[in-house]
């Protein structure tokens, strides 16, 4: 394949990334830790931990428990608050040299709007990711994004205000396509699919929940097929909307599968916690696959999934 200029760079809704593999939210430390562990120039992007308006101490320990091929965790969004974040943590993240996506989280519309306003014109920040899986303090619902109209309202407010692209990170809901459509109509540039699944760990020998916060979230390879399905469904419904596939990716092959299902790029979370070198290894794996198949860019993987011809309405019998 001499003559083909092969590159890992991808354009995700106007955001140019050196590779399609980024570190998922909450797995990139505070900007100090990564430098010694991985070459940031080989990362697609770093998604910051979710930042809230006020500082959060997070949940009591233990915050992590293992389950089969996954981790049940809850950190309670421990973060120093947006003001300290933009003053101390953000410059460090930007300084690593990788594009930075800032993840924001809140309980009310006002919080999201104020967070967005405080993130305007910050050099090095290429996009905002809205984490909308938390509790809705205004309407008293358990999950902010549980209804398409509410998700669209929040994401729309952020998107109207933001001068940089906005990605809505969605939890897995029965109607993920409807919620996704609502967010995109409201102005989201793209979607991150999926947020961790609600989970509980139990330690039978001690008659106790495994986590200090009792309930938590499941991440890791255990949720990968679930994420693939969500990416596939949304990508099939809206092929032109950039999707960041997130959930259990730990090898180049996993990332390729995610992109074949319709993702434009992938986020690596749990695998980064297990091995900080994972995002770079995943990108290397993607490059090897492109080489093997004679493709020029990760964008060529999208829509390459060979589906069976028109399904038989009478069923497969």
């Amino acid at each position, binding site marked *: 394949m001499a003559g083909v200029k092969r590159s890992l760079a991808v354009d995700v809704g106007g955001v140019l990334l050196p590779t399609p593999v980024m570190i998922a939210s909450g797995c990139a430390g505070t900007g100090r*830790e990564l430098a010694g562990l991985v070459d940031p120039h080989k990362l697609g992007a770093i998604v910051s931990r979710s930042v809230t308006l006020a500082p959060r101490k997070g949940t009591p320990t233990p915050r992590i428990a293992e389950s089969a091929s996954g981790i049940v965790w809850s950190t309670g969004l421990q973060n120093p608050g947006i003001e300290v974040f933009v003053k101390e943590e953000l410059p460090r993240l930007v300084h690593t040299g990788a594009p930075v996506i800032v993840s924001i989280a809140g309980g009310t519309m006002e919080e999201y709007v104020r967070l967005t306003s405080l993130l305007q014109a910050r050099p090095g920040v290429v996009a905002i990711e809205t984490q909308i899986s938390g509790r809705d303090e205004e309407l008293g619902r358990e999950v902010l994004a549980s209804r398409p109209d509410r998700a669209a309202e929040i994401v729309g407010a952020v998107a109207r205000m933001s001068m940089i692209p906005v990605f809505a990170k969605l939890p897995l809901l029965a109607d993920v396509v409807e919620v996704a459509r609502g967010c995109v109509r409201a102005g989201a540039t793209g979607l991150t699919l999926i947020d961790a699944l609600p989970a509980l760990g139990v330690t039978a020998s001690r008659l106790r929940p495994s986590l200090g916060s009792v309930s938590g979230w499941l991440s890791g390879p255990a949720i990968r097929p679930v994420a693939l399905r969500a990416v596939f469904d949304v990508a099939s419904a809206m092929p032109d909307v950039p999707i960041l596939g997130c959930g259990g990716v730990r090898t180049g092959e996993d990332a390729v599968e995610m992109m074949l299902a319709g993702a434009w790029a992938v986020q690596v979370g749990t695998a980064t916690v297990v091995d900080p*070198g994972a995002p770079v290894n995943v990108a290397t794996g993607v490059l090897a696959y492109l080489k093997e198949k004679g493709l020029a860019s990760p964008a060529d993987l999208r829509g390459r999934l060979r589906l069976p011809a028109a399904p038989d309405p009478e069923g497969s019998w």
Partner: protein
Amino acid sequence: MRRTRAEILSARRVGAYHSLTLVAPEVAERARPGQFVAVQMPEDRDYLLPRHFSIHQASRRGGWAGTLEFCFEPGGKGTTWLANARAHGFLDVTGPLGKGFAYPKRLTNCLLVAEGHGAASLYFLAQELLVREKRVDMVLGAGTMERVFKPIEGKRLSQTNAIMTEDGTLGDRGTVLDALPEMAARCGSEVIYAAGPAPMLEKVAAFCRERRIPAQVVVEERMACGVGLCHSCVVPVARKDGSGYDNLRACVDGPVFNPARVLWDRWMSDVPTMIPTPPEGLPVVRSWPG
């Protein structure tokens, strides 16, 4: 910190514990007492997270130069897998991680208090203290004889020592806390180092605060990444200016902390039980009513 593929030089049983010695010169020559290593789990298993162990021994010189030893008690899936590791196998190791113990500059009498395999990191510390011409005394303890970690090595490294077991199978009957006040008084201890489970560390901390003895403890908290990425292993530590506290990560801000600043009550506030225990005096309902 270095990531390396290390050959297992030897795998041994030490009482109730297992000990692995690795050939890992890059890690060994940087290691300090109190620091730990992360051991990667095999890729084809369903338990993913690396396991973290205090460094028990890191030899920089002599016939064992470049080797690293850590100890553990098999319990979960990961440690059970490690317990089956044999010499000449390979492990992916990252280390040394965390901040180690600080050594006293002026004070000389050091008392090392350890419960169970907490002693592993304190023996390494004892060697470094002896090199710095400090006096080392030890209080070692555990539930039973097999769980007292290498008592002979402890005796070799300390000027005086007390060994305590809860069932009296080795040394005196009792816990390290029973022997602590007398040992501290007899040895004229000026600095106390402690390692072990949190409830014991809390009591050592209370003792040190009462007697105004400077102390350092190495905490045990469940870790995931071990390098500061995930904020799983936090310990509430009071700020120096007294304006509240921060949840500091044991893996990068610790695992060695000043016990006087750790908010023990907040840290150890236990996970709620799923089945509440009936208050004393009330009859326990053994079957469902009706």
